[in-house]
């Protein structure tokens, strides 16, 4: 079902971004700057232990960065009327959704590839190499939910009058469940280390969230993107 079209759209998004790099560079800088802000916001006194804030800080940063990225990913389409062209192509709307989600996921992963090592250097005192596979699994499951839901809502908000102002208001209350699960899981990994068994509930929850919203977006995207 539209595998070629899927690849074409993803490649288009990646090529466009890699030629200018304005979105990626700003998002990476934003993420790094946010870490500095968090450090000073939380360091109420010398040598305070921030370990139990690490999960929260990391994911708050990613979610805010993603809001920037999601807005950009559709603003460009809209400004140059690329989206109209895309809609005129004989492509299933759902393929557009999946491709857009995949594109956003790739950007988020690129940012995380830079941000997570720096974050670890700044804030995590324990080595979590043993839990790295588990951490990556948590990361991927949370990213998927964030990107799927974010893409659907960004599609809606870019077609409205207030555009990027609207997205956070729609997106943040819906993403809180992911934030709760992923923050707890990440903090546990950073602070004490853990096993697959003890994270199972949270992982299953994230997986369930991803699946449910993929299906919901699949069912409603036709309407969200408009004719």
């Amino acid at each position, binding site marked *: 079902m539209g595998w070629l079209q899927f690849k074409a759209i993803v490649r288009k998004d990646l090529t466009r971004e890699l030629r200018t790099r304005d979105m990626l560079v700003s998002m990476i800088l934003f993420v790094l700057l946010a870490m500095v802000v968090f450090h000073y916001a939380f360091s109420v006194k010398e040598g305070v232990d921030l370990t139990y804030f690490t999960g929260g800080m990391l994911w708050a940063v990613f979610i805010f960065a993603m809001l920037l990225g999601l807005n950009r990913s559709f603003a460009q389409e809209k400004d140059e009327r690329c989206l109209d062209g895309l809609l005129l192509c004989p492509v299933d709307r759902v393929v557009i959704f999946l491709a857009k989600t995949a594109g956003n996921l790739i950007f988020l992963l690129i940012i995380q590839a830079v941000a997570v090592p720096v974050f670890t250097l700044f804030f995590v005192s324990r080595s979590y190499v043993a839990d790295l596979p588990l951490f990556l699994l948590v990361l991927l499951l949370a990213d998927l939910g964030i990107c799927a*839901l974010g893409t*659907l*809502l960004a599609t*809606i*908000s870019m*077609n*409205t*009058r*207030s555009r990027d102002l*609207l997205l956070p*208001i*729609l997106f*943040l*209350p*819906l993403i*809180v*469940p*992911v934030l*709760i*699960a992923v923050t*707890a899981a990440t903090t546990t990994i950073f602070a004490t280390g853990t096993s697959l068994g003890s994270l199972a*509930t*949270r992982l299953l*929850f994230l997986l*369930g*969230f991803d699946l*449910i*919203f993929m299906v*919901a977006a699949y*069912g*409603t995207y036709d*309407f*969200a993107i*408009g004719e």
Partner: protein
Amino acid sequence: MKKVLSAPALFVGSGIFLVLGLLLAFWYSPVDASTMGYSQKILYFHAPIATAALLAFGVAFVAAVLFLRSQDPKWDRLGVVSVRVGLLFSVLVMATGMIWGKAAWGVWWAWEPRLTTFLLVCFLYAAYFVLRSVVEEEQRRATYAAVFAIIAFIDVPITYLSTRLLPEGLHPVVLGPGGGGMPGNMLVSFMISMFGMMLLLAALIRRDLGIEDLKERVADLKNSIGG
């Protein structure tokens, strides 16, 4: 039948049941034996209001699905009206919940699963109205609102589940698995209040629908005389 289900009749019916429920709650049902005493009486309103709020959002969800299938504006009107009433009830849930929280736990606000869920529900459905206000075109506004109402309603149980992933839990689970259950003389008052609240919900939705229909007619008339 039509007369019985008219808004005034429903208002009168709900008034009778709510007052009866209140009287029974104080003079028939037992006073709470634990530390809560009379403050526990708020249960007879708090829980029915919460149920009514969720039911209203359920109605909005069904209306949204029906709208997307038929594109008939009457379902959009039902959707707006249900969300509006649901939001009103959600704010009341928070208010009564906070009053009860102060009496039972000694604090106005606790980050407790159900209270937190309703806080997020309030944000979610407030966003629904923000979304509506920034789309001018009628058909598009209705479509986006429907998509968002569907996503939001799916998110409510997920949010509740996610808040349960956190360790603490202050809320008494009264009905359902693990609940303490209710003795007969509490249940009667509770169910009468519940029924009254459902009638009130129906009455409010009914009345608001009437108002929306009138608005529609005014708009049509204005158009027909060229104003």
